[in-house]
């Protein structure tokens, strides 16, 4: 079966932040009333009729979303008969990325000409400590890891401790990533945090998981996003600028948080393998990229995945951010959206927000944060401690 070329031709996202209303509040904000306008808006941007949607891949909602089987609920709510397929997708941090990947697969295989990859992540009304009672069970062996009280980002903190030890890098160098990302977010209408953030602010913040403080770890928040994915033929006919999916790579190292065989934990093997696959499929090298939008919930994660993907040399990601090499206007801007730290990290849809940013950049809609002449961009998502990585390379087409 030959695969068809696939385009991203539309997108819409709501500003990230606190959308979920606490239980018992007389007036509630509900997920479908947030998501439906994004579906309508993204299809309008795509210039495609409502009837053209053949498939829906929905990033699974958080357990706090009361409406179950939300995908078919949405298909009814918006009167969308579907001949291609409908499903809800879970892959922990990779959830949004897999929802996009599935929409691409549906179109590439010919099951659908137009597919929506969408999701709404509501969680902010649950306290962080209570939320972690659930999330700790997703990021560890519940009988041999969770028993000690590891929080999800504790694994990243241990990456950071080891990385600082192995490469002689300081916390302050890595904190430059948070400062850079906040500058990017100030230019992004959907960013959760836009107020200027200094290196001193980052270093003085209260500790969350040492050595990571409040501004080096992701905020909690809600968000929603819809992407319109279609065959390149449909995109050409629609006559709008689009982003072509040029390459895709995936790898899971067969380990859950830590490898039982001692290895170099901060090498992020999955991101190395998946990015090599994606670059090969696209026929490019890392140095050909104009920007990268990475799933990186902490400063250290952005450093490690940038290095694993060959965007900066190992041990240099902090300095590259501080010196502007990976900032807007630099050699290779990373996380132009503001990333998980400042754009926001409604984690089940973060993978969708990654593609949304790439689509905005590659169709030159990114306004003040536009990467001039952006032609090739890469996006990543992951699960666990980057035990798995899914990487897409997209190209600007007009």
């Amino acid at each position, binding site marked *: 079966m030959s695969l068809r070329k696939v385009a991203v031709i539309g997108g819409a996202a709501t500003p990230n932040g606190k959308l979920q209303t606490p239980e018992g509040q007389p007036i509630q904000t509900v997920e479908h009333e947030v998501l439906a306008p994004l579906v309508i808006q993204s299809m309008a941007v795509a210039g495609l009729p409502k009837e053209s949607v053949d498939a829906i891949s929905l990033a699974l909602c958080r357990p706090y979303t009361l409406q179950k089987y939300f995908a078919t609920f949405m298909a009814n709510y918006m009167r969308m008969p579907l001949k291609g397929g409908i499903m809800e997708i879970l892959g922990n941090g990779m959830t949004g990325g897999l929802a996009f990947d599935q929409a691409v697969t549906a179109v590439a295989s010919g099951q659908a000409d137009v597919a929506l990859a969408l999701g709404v992540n509501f969680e902010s009304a649950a*306290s*962080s*400590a*209570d939320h*972690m*009672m659930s999330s*700790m069970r997703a990021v*560890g*062996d*519940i*009988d*041999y*890891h*969770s*028993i*000690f*009280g*590891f*929080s999800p980002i*504790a694994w990243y*903190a*241990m*990456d950071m*401790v*080891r990385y600082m*030890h192995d490469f002689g890098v300081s916390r302050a160098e890595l904190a430059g990533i948070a400062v850079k990302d906040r500058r990017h977010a100030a230019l992004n209408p959907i960013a959760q945090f836009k107020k200027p953030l200094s290196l001193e602010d980052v270093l003085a913040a*209260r*500790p*969350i*998981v*040492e*050595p990571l403080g409040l501004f080096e770890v992701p905020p909690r928040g809600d968000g929603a996003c819809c992407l319109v994915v279609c065959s390149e033929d449909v995109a050409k006919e629609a006559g709008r600028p689009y982003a072509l999916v040029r390459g895709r790579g995936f790898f899971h190292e067969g380990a859950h*948080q*830590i*490898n*039982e*065989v*001692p*290895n170099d*934990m901060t090498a992020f093997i999955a991101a190395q393998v998946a990015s090599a696959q994606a670059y090969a499929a696209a026929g490019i090298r890392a140095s050909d990229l104009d920007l990268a939008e990475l799933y990186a919930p902490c400063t250290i994660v952005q450093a490690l995945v940038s290095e694993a993907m060959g965007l900066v040399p190992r041990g240099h990601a902090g300095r590259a951010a501080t010196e502007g090499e990976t900032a807007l206007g630099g050699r290779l801007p990373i996380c132009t959206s503001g990333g998980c730290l400042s754009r926001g990290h409604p984690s089940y849809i973060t993978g969708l927000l990654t593609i949304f940013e790439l689509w905005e950049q590659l169709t030159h809609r990114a306004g003040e944060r536009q990467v001039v002449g952006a032609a090739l961009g890469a996006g990543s998502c992951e699960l666990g401690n980057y035990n798995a990585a899914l990487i897409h390379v997209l190209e600007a087409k007009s």
Partner: protein
Amino acid sequence: MTLPRVKMAGNRPWPPRITDHSKHFWDALAEGRLITTKGKTSGKLTFPPKPFCPYDWGQEVEWVGLSGKGRLYSQTVIHAVPTAFQHEAPIRNGIVDLDEGLRVAARILGEPALDAPVECVVLDYDDGPLFGFRAIL
């Protein structure tokens, strides 16, 4: 050789589930021994212990004792902890590479430096044991 013991306050915040298989591990730990399984055909150790060998899927495994000695690979102090652990916060947890070539995650006692030699200790909670590591003095 039995592992040193450290008395902990109260019950384990999030106790492990015990199965017919894992009971061997937890009962041995309560007696002061750190053990795991080894595949009979592959000859490979695995951790956590499993009723089969993950390397060759062989169905026959044997229980073997571990030295409990290793080196600290990494660690962190967790200030923002899940609800059940709030009375223990802040918590120092880490990753230890055992001399037998296995990597495990555990509670860390004291403040050992990275790569420092560490030894396993039984953490005696009121309702049962967990395991931790501390610097070898």
